[in-house]
């Protein structure tokens, strides 16, 4: 049990740090993917961990991680209007669909089309964003089902 708690605590620390840094990702897709990954970890720990009592230590690590996650959400919500939905498409300017409405309206800036290696990287990142978000959402769904459904089936 102690080993499980230690592993879960380490995961929570990683998740908390990840949540706090979520606002550094350049697109909304990537930010959401990061948050969903952290949420999956949180729900999985809720599923398997023994939280102990007030005289233990695990509950305090959990509470600190929850506060960190909340702070991460604050930082994300603060920068959200400035973020594009996705990475810029190669070979042309940023499409309207990929820029958030706020960013377009607020800046009146033009984005130069990325070229060469940068364009290839941007295209790769863009192709990875959707699967990453889908996988993150699916992981949350699976763990949430594992948390909720068995309990509803028990008479």
């Amino acid at each position, binding site marked *: 049990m102690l080993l499980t708690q230690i592993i879960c605590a380490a995961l929570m620390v990683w998740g908390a740090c990840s949540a706090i840094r979520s606002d550094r990702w350049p697109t909304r897709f990537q930010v959401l993917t990061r948050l969903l990954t952290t949420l999956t970890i949180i729900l999985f720990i809720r599923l398997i961990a023994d939280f102990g009592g007030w005289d233990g230590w695990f509950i305090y690590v959990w509470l600190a991680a929850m506060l960190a996650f909340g702070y991460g*959400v604050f930082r994300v*919500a603060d920068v959200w209007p400035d973020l594009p939905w996705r990475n810029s498409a190669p070979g042309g300017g940023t499409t309207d669909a990929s820029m958030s409405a706020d960013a377009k309206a*607020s*800046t009146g800036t033009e*984005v130069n089309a990325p070229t060469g290696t940068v364009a290839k990287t941007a295209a790769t990142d863009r192709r990875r964003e959707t699967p990453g978000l889908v996988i993150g959402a699916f992981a949350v769904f699976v763990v949430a089902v594992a948390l909720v459904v068995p309990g509803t089936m028990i008479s």
Partner: protein
Amino acid sequence: MDITTDSGHHVNQVVAKTQRSPRRRLVAVVAAAIVAALLLLITPFPRGFQGEATGDAALRREVESTLGSKHWHHMAAAKINGDEVTWAGAGADENTEFEIGSITKTFTAALFADAIERGEIDEGTRLGDVWPDLDGDVAEVTLASIAMQRSGLPAQVPAPDFITGARTMVANYIHTDPYLGTKTELIDSLSTVDVGDKKPEYSNFAFAVLGQTLAEAAGESYGDLVRERITEPLGMHDTFVPSSPGGLTHGYTASGLPAAPWTLHGAAPAGAIRSTTHDLSIWLQATMRGKAPGAEAAHPRAEYDENERIGWAWLTTTSRSPHITWHNGGTGGYRSFLGFNPDERTGIIVLVDTANSVDAAMGLISSDSASAADAPAMKEG
């Protein structure tokens, strides 16, 4: 406008940001507060026992104080002092049914002792004597070595195939009964296991095999054996081996999630019995006084570790004062403890429907330090 490329080759667009208006900050704060509140809602905060208090208030407070802060649900306890039994509970009473988990092994061990007395087997009976299709080292394993947890058999029931092993692992994570195999599959798995060193090592698999072997020798099911040879003669009417999970109450994990009832299927002799503190007080007193069928199973026979000796299933902790003979139990949603000192004629039973250890209950009749000079002489078996 500035475009930069960072070391990770991401193109970061730094556009002229809008000023962070108070409204935007407020939205961010509200979003964070909502998320934090939702996460706190799913937090299993430590709390005391829940539900209506029953029985003796002093004993209930004593149990709560001893077991400490955890995420608890319901509890039933009994303290025995000679002929006097004191009950206490929270959200449960002496007639509330709990899964007793591995306390079941004391019943299995009693059936073993009782079968010896009846002449169905003897202490030297081997698995191969009852299951003639077995051969090799596993056939040479004696029932007595199993009863003293030193048979060399694996600790857990081996999975017959990958799918069953995966289902067992998933069952542990979603808090359902991980014991899926039938009696036939349990015995068939004996042909696939390696027998290790015959050193003390707790084994659910071995005790499941012991119980099913006793049932085979008697020509009855394990559940019928328990009923006919132990619970009916002693008047333990609320104690039984469940045959299916339908209609059974359930407990909770240590973090408060519902846990499905366990029947253990073919491994029932290792931990499937359901009982009440009322019935277990009968079992405790009858065993303590030597009146129960197979009561000699409780007598310590060999060393288990540096602080404990073992009889048949029953452990006796010699580092406590007075020494305490006991067994505990645990399933996905329950924990239990039953212990006694035959010289002082005291005993304690604690049953909870939360997967938090209640072994600290031994402190209610025995303290942590032992004086060798004061220790009563242990009966050798």
